[in-house]
C-alpha cells in the first residue's frame, strides 16, 4: 500500500532579541514573564518594531542550505488569526514564503518562511508565560514525497544536521516542532500536530499507519481531519474534521511593510554558506578514501568534520577517521556533549596521535588522555608529562616488572602452562598496573611468553 507523507518543520532561530521587539529570547533559564514588553505581550496600542534582520538572514541561509530559490519580490508578513491563551493579540505574525523549490536527500522542499513563536500556556494552572512570545521561528515545508516512517525519520535527522551546520538555530535543541500530513492509498489526508521530536514524528506516523490500515480493513473510510499526537501514549487523537477547519482570515499585517531581500544579501549569504552534511560525507569518502560509515559519523557535526579535515592534513586519513569515529565519539557520547563544547581541539588530537604513532605513549595511555581532555582542556603533551605517562622503553625495567608479576602469581602461571592461554592476559594486566600503563602491552606479552615458555624448556 502506497504511503505518502509530507512534513512541516518549525525550529527556533537563534537570535539575541525577539522578532518584533528588543526583548531577550532567553525563556528557559529565566523567571516566567521577565523578558517581555508591551509589544510581545500584545498590550492595547502596541505595534511591532521592524522585523529582526538577523532572524530573516538566518531563514535565508537555512533556505539556501536546501538549494531553495529565494523570493525576489517583497515578502509580506501576514496575520494568522486564531484564539488561544498563548496568543496575546489573537493572531500570529507569519511571513509568506521567503524561498521555494529546494531539496534535501532528493525530497522536495516546497517553501521556507519565518514567523513568531507564541507564549507558553499551562492548562493546569491556567497561566501564560510570554517569555517565548515573539521568539523567531523558521518553518520548512516539504513536498509529500516521503513514503515510510523510517524515511521520514531519516529525513528529519538529516534536516536537523543541516540546521545545526548553519549554527542559526538554537543550540540546546529540543525546540523542534513538526506537523505531518499522511495519507494511505485510497484514504483521505490526515494532519498530525503537536509533535516535538524526530522520535515523536516516527512514532506518530507508525501509529497513524496502523490506525488507518485498521479502518480500511474493516471497510471504513479514513476521514480528512486534523489529529493531535499524544506523546505520553504515543498515539494520535482527533482534533477537528475538515468541515470544522479553522479559517485564519489571513491579511497582510498593516503595521509591517513587506520585507525586501536584495540580490547582494543573497550573494553574501551564499558565500558564507557551509557545505551541507550529506555532500561533505560524500566528499570525505572520495577525497580522503575513508570508510563510508566513518564519513557519516564524522559529518554529523560541522565542528567534528572540520576537526577531521585538520587532523587528516597531518595524520593518515583513515587513522584519523577511525580515531575520531571510535574514541572521540565515545567520549562525546559518554559526556553527552557536542564536539564544539567538548574542549577537544583538533591540534590536541594531532599531538596525541603523533605521540602514539612515534611510540612515545601507548595506545592505552592515548585513550586515557583522550578521556581526560573534556575535563582538563589542555595539551595532551602536558597531560602526559605531568602524569609521567611516557612509555617505558627501558627493557630492563619492563623485564623486572614481568619477573615480579610472574613470581607473585604462580597460580596463573600454572593455569597457563596447563593450557589456559588466557591466564597470561591476567599477568599482562598485572604488569601494566605495576608500570601504570606505560609499558607496551604487546611487548609485555612477548616477554612473559618467552619467560614462561623458557621455564617449560
Amino acid at each position, binding site marked *: 500500500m502506497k504511503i505518502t507523507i509530507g512534513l512541516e518543520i518549525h525550529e527556533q532561530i537563534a537570535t539575541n532579541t525577539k522578532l518584533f521587539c528588543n526583548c531577550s529570547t532567553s525563556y528557559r533559564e529565566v523567571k516566567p514573564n521577565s523578558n517581555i514588553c*508591551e509589544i510581545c505581550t*500584545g*498590550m*492595547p*496600542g*502596541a*505595534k*511591532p*518594531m*521592524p*522585523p529582526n534582520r538577523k532572524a530573516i538572514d538566518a531563514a535565508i541561509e537555512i533556505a539556501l542550505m536546501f538549494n531553495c530559490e529565494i523570493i525576489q519580490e517583497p515578502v509580506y508578513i501576514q*496575520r494568522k*488569526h486564531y*484564539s488561544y*491563551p498563548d496568543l*496575546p*493579540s*489573537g*493572531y500570529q505574525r507569519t511571513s509568506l514564503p521567503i524561498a521555494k523549490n529546494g531539496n534535501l536527500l532528493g525530497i522536495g522542499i516546497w517553501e521556507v518562511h519565518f514567523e513568531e513563536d507564541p507564549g507558553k500556556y499551562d492548562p493546569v494552572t491556567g497561566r501564560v508565560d510570554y517569555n517565548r512570545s515573539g521568539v523567531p521561528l523558521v518553518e520548512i515545508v516539504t513536498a509529500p514525497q516521503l513514503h515510510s516512517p523510517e524515511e521520514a525519520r531519516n529525513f528529519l535527522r538529516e534536516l536537523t544536521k543541516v540546521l545545526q551546520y548553519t549554527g542559526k538555530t538554537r543550540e540546546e535543541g529540543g525546540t523542534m516542532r513538526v506537523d505531518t500530513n499522511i495519507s494511505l492509498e485510497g484514504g483521505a489526508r490526515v494532519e498530525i500536530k503537536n509533535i516535538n521530536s524526530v522520535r515523536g514524528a516516527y512514532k506518530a506516523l507508525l501509529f497513524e499507519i496502523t490506525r488507518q490500515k485498521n479502518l480500511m480493513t474493516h471497510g471504513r473510510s479514513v476521514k480528512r481531519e486534523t489529529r493531535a499526537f499524544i506523546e505520553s501514549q504515543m498515539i494520535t487523537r482527533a482534533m477537528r474534521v475538515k468541515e470544522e477547519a479553522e*479559517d*485564519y*482570515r*489571513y*491579511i497582510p*499585517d*498593516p*503595521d*509591517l*511593510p513587506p520585507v525586501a531581500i536584495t540580490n547582494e544579501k543573497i550573494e553574501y549569504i551564499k558565500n558564507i554558506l557551509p557545505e551541507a552534511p550529506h555532500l561533505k560525507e560524500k566528499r570525505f569518502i572520495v577525497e580522503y578514501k575513508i570508510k563510508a560509515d566513518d564519513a557519516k559519523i564524522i559529518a554529523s557535526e560541522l565542528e567534528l568534520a572540520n576537526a577531521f579535515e585538520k587532523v587528516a592534513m597531518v595524520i593518515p586519513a583513515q587513522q584519523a577517521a577511525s580515531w575520531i569515529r571510535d574514541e572521540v565519539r565515545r567520549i562525546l557520547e559518554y559526556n553527552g556533549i557536542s564536539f564544539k563544547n567538548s574542549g577537544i581541539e583538533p591540534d590536541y588530537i594531532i599531538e596525541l596521535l603523533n605521540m602514539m604513532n612515534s611510540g612515545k605513549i601507548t595506545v592505552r595511555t592515548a585513550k586515557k588522555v583522550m578521556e581526560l581532555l573534556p575535563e582538563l582542556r589542555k595539551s595532551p603533551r602536558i597531560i602526559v608529562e605531568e602524569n609521567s605517562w611516557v612509555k617505558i622503553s627501558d627493557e630492563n625495567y619492563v623485564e623486572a616488572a614481568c619477573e615480579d608479576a610472574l613470581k607473585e602469581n604462580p597460580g596463573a602461571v600454572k593455569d597457563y602452562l596447563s593450557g589456559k592461554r588466557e591466564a597470561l592476559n591476567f599477568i599482562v594486566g598485572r604488569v601494566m598496573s605495576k608500570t601504570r600503563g606505560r609499558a607496551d602491552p604487546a611487548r609485555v606479552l612477548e616477554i612473559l611468553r618467552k619467560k614462561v615458555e623458557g621455564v617449560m624448556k
Partner: protein
Amino acid sequence: MGTLDEKLHSLRAGEISAEQNIQNFLDKIENEKYNAILYVNSEALEEARNVDRKIKQGRAGKLSGLAIAVKSNINVKGLKTSCASKTLENYSATYDATVIERIRREDGIVIGMANMDEFACGSSGETSYFGPILNPAARGRIPGGSSSGSAASIAGGLSDLAIGSDTGGSIRNPASHCGIIGIKPTYGLVPRQGLIDLAMSFDQIGTLGRDVYSTALLLEVIAGYSKREAVSRKVENLDYTSKLTPDLEGYKIGYVTEFEELTDRRINSEIKKSLEKLEMQGAELVEVNLPNLNKALPTYYLTTFVEFFSATRKYDGRRYGYKIEDVCGEEILRRIHIGSYISQKEYSGKYYRKALQFRSLITRELLEALRDIDLIAGPTTPKLPHRLGEKISPLDMYSYDVLTVQAKQVKSEISLLEYSFRQNLLKNRRFSM
C-alpha cells in the same frame, strides 16, 4: 482669552505659573457639562510644579506647562485608556505612547483622558459607553467624532491643546463641527506606538487647538521618525511654527468639483468665501477632478472593517475582563461582524483584496492630481452636524466621512486643506487639515 502664543510667553516670563494654569483647567473640568473629559490626571499639579521649577531654571521645553487633553485610545501610563468602551473600562495603561513621551519631554502636561466614540468608531460623538459628548460651539448638535472629547475640550476651554486620532476623519470632523483647528498628519509622520488600533493602515495621531499655531506647535513636538515602529517615515528638521505665514504668493491650490456635488450648499457657500480669501492672499486656484471619489468611501470602510476585526481579536475576555462582542455598542459589533465576514477565505478575494486594489487606484489618482498643485482645499464634511440623539442610518453616518477618507488612502506627502481653515495657513505639504 489671548492666543496660545501669548500664554506661552506669560508662562515663560513667570507671569502665570504652570501650576495656576493646570489648576484653572482642573477647576473647569470639575464643572464641565460637555462630558468631554473621562479621567483626570491626578498627578497633573505635581507635574506642573516640576515644570515651574524648570521654567525658573530656564530649561523648560517647548510646551512649558501647557495642558493637553489626550483621547482615550492613546496610552498614558497609569491612566485609564478605555477607548470609551466597557471592554477596556478597567484597563490602566502600562506604558506611555511615544507621543506622550515626546509631550512629557517638552514639558506638556496631560490634564486628562478625553471622551470619544467607542473605539473611535463613529462620526458623531454619540457612541461612547460613558455617554455622548456635547458640542460647546453649537448647543444641541453633535460635536462630530470620533475625537469628540478632544475637540470639545478645546472648544469648551478645558485644555490648551489636545491630541486625537484620525482614521477617516476623526480629528478633522469634530474640529470642524466644534469650530476649532484639527489636523491629520500624513500617515507615518507621527509615531502610532501606543495608539489603540481602529484600522492600522489609516490611523494617525494628530493635534487639535484653537488656532493653527497651536496645532502646528504640538505637531512639531510629536512628529518625527521613531525606530520603534515599522511604518515610521524618515523625516528630519520638522519645523512648522516658523513657517506660518498668510502669504500665499506662488501657491497653487486645487478645489475638487466632485466635492461640491456631494456637499450641502450652505457649506459650499462658506467654502467659496474661503477660496476667495485664499486667492486674495496670492494663491492661484486650480480646478481638480477626482473621478473615483465615489469609490473612496466603500473602499475605506471595507478595509477598515477588516483591520478593525483583526485589531480587536485580543479583547477575547481572557485578559481585559470582557469579550468585546459581549459588551460593545452596536456600531462596534456591526464592524466586527462585517470585518469577519468579508475577510473569510472564500470572500477575501471578492471584498478585501478588491478594496486594496481600489485603494491603489485612488492613491494614484490623488498623487496625479497633486503633481502640479501644492494642496487641495475643500470642506471637511458634506453636511452640517445633526441634532444630538437624532436617529440616522449607519450609511448616513458613514457618509460624514465621504470627504475625509480619501486622504488616508494615500500614504504620501499630500495635503488637503479643509473647512477647519481659519486664520492662517501652514506652508508645508505634510498636512491634511
